[in-house]
């Protein structure tokens, strides 16, 4: 035990001495949370639009004003002719154009109908869709207001409630994902690199020929990263609660226990990688390609899994981060208890045991 503690201390020195790395390891999660929380919203606002008004009557001006007043739009251009429309789209100045045909008001008075055209820049399909929906709603509102409270028969009203995330904030989705990403990065990648570094530099040889039990050396390597992860989890949770206003709905104890479980999973993965890799670059590559990319792509926090083709959906099941993401989402955002997360927890625990068994076995064979 005494010997073990010595090694733990040695590892802490290693970590502590490289201030730059330590700073990044602690600063990165904070940056990520802030970026994700504040900058990455799928919400549409202040979109630049153009108006092509061929009619220029009272009505089109009123609609233009209402569009201007809406917080979704910002009218940046009044286009005089149809030819200029494409040029404006091509230069990327506008995302939506509202085209009024000639004589809107007159047509409406005589024939009871007129058509307004909305043209969206579908380079980004979702934004285009959303903008067209919003602009239609503004025009529709204008019409309803104009029509007044005419007695409309047979109305079906829709009452909508947004559960869990009433303000539709992106951070509710991102916070659990960033936690998974950071833990993967800190635990798996950094551990594997630091073990392989000793191999590369030759100090591992020295340790292995000494009378110290090798497994202990390795376990001592894991301790600082485990603690670092706990610090990271703490700072992420504090930031998300106090700065981003993402509340922890469920039990904090359960959440922290689950985080520790996932930290262990990642550490075991790092150990596994270090037993395969021979150089730092290889360890980096394997952890980037084999761990980090799948975590970002297939855990479901950035990209919806249900939209993926079948092979990817199947593969996503062996990505530990996917299960962790489900657990954190359920406990933290939805406020559910153990009875809803026991399944992913068991899967995660099983994976951890599996990785542990494999890496210990690998480790022993290498010693012989």
């Amino acid at each position, binding site marked *: 035990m005494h010997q073990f503690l010595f090694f733990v201390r040695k590892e802490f020195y290693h970590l502590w001495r490289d201030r*730059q*790395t330590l700073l*990044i390891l602690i600063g990165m999660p904070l940056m990520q949370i802030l970026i*994700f929380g504040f*900058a*990455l*919203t*799928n919400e*549409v606002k202040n979109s630049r639009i153009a108006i092509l008004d061929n009619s220029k009557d009272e009505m089109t001006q009123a609609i233009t004003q209402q569009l201007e007043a809406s917080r979704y739009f910002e009218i940046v251009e009044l286009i005089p002719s149809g030819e200029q429309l494409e040029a404006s*789209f*091509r230069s*990327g100045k506008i995302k939506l154009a509202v085209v009024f045909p000639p004589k809107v008001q007159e047509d*409406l*008075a005589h024939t*009871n*109908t*007129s*058509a307004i*055209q*909305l*043209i*969206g*820049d*579908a*380079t*980004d*399909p*979702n934004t285009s*869709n*959303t903008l067209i*929906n919003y602009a239609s709603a503004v025009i*529709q509102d204008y019409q309803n207001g104009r029509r007044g409270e*005419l007695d409309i*028969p*047979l*109305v*079906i009203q*829709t*009452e909508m*409630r*947004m*559960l869990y*995330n009433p303000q*539709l904030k992106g951070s*509710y989705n991102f916070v659990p994902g960033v936690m998974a990403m950071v833990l993967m990065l800190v635990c798996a990648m950094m551990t594997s690199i630091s073990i392989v570094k000793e191999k590369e530099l030759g100090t591992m040889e020295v340790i292995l020929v000494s009378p110290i039990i090798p497994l202990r050396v390795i376990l001592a390597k894991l301790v600082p990263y485990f603690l670092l992860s706990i610090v990271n989890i703490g700072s992420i949770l504090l930031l998300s609660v106090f700065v981003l206003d993402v509340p922890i709905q469920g039990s904090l104890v359960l959440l922290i226990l689950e985080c520790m479980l996932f930290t262990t999973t990642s550490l075991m993965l790092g150990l596994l990688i270090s037993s395969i890799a021979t150089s730092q*670059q290889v360890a*980096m*590559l394997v952890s980037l390609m084999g761990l980090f990319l799948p975590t970002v*792509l297939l855990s479901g926090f*950035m*990209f*919806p899994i*249900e*939209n993926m*083709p079948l092979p*990817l959906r199947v593969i996503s099941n062996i990505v530990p981060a996917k299960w962790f993401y*489900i657990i954190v*989402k*359920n406990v933290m955002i939805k406020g559910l208890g153990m009875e*809803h997360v026991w399944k992913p927890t068991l899967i995660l625990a099983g994976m951890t045991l599996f990785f542990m068994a494999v890496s210990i076995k690998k480790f022993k064979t290498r010693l012989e």
Partner: protein
Amino acid sequence: MRALRILLEKEFRQIFRNPAILRIMFMVPTIQLLIMPLAADYEVKNVNICVVDYDRSPASSRLIHKITATDYFTLVDFTDSYDQALTRLEDDEADLVLQIAPGFEKNLVRENKATVFLAINAINGVKANMGGAYLRSVIGDFNQDIRMEWRTTSPPVQQPVVSITSANWFNPLMNYRFFMVPGILVILVTMVGAFLSALNIVKEKEVGTLEQINVTPIRKHQFILGKLIPFWILGLIVLTIGLTIARLVYGIVPTGSLMTIYVFAAVFLIAVLGMGLLVSTFANTQQQAMLLSFFLMMIFILLGGLFTSIDSMPTWAQVFAAINPVSHFIEVMRMVVLKGSNLYDIRHHFFSVLAFGAVSNGLAVWNYRKRS
């Protein structure tokens, strides 16, 4: 000139001798381009719906039928209890719950008014928003239908109606991949430029060969050019591979000219190479270089508008995006590939990136010292 040529020869030999680097060079772009667009599909489809029908009237079942007839919604459960439906929502089996209260049809006939209730899982805000809006429009259509049918006795009041038509330009089929693939191409080029160049220089530092170069009469600018030119060429090669894959696999043929893309990419690469060089002057070990460039790349890419629109970001992020070369290149790629923009259309982006390149390279050269 001769010294530079020899340095370049050395760099290329090193690159081609190291299978790991070559593997990153060719595998990563291919794999990313093959997998990422498949995974990064934000198109909202397959919304799972759970219906709680307390009314069980002809009208309610007709509404449900109308909803399930669209290929947008999948009915996962049809129950009598709201609690059971909520469990479905909690377990992520359903995205939204539609509750039709008892007396729906009766209220509609007698009081001319009825309410349906929608509960939406809003953790994924986009999906919640779009799913809710779409369901509302289906309900609105249904409303219109029954209004026409049930009110045959009294003639409908003639109301002036402005109809709204919409068109989706540049991507009429609303293919999400057309949006993602050009953006991912930018990421690949950035990776080669910023990541690999930084790692390459720091490796020489770590291994100690940089010392050896430093004691030779090679000039500072020669050494830097010798490091930058190979990665500049590799970046353009990766771009070519990417464009080829985009064409063969996704059928994306740039509407604009390839020349525009390459001219911009050439300048863009100078800018990110400067960034990689700057990182390498700060880092002493490969681990540090990797972390540092990873950290920077993440910020540049995430704030570059690959996934979310820059317009809806807060002001500070928009200011950053105006400096960020990655956001300019992503924008330019989409403009040229989908809209066919020409060099004149993208001139602002061009000059911003040029300025960034001048500053980053200047800083890197200034910060690079021959003595350690």
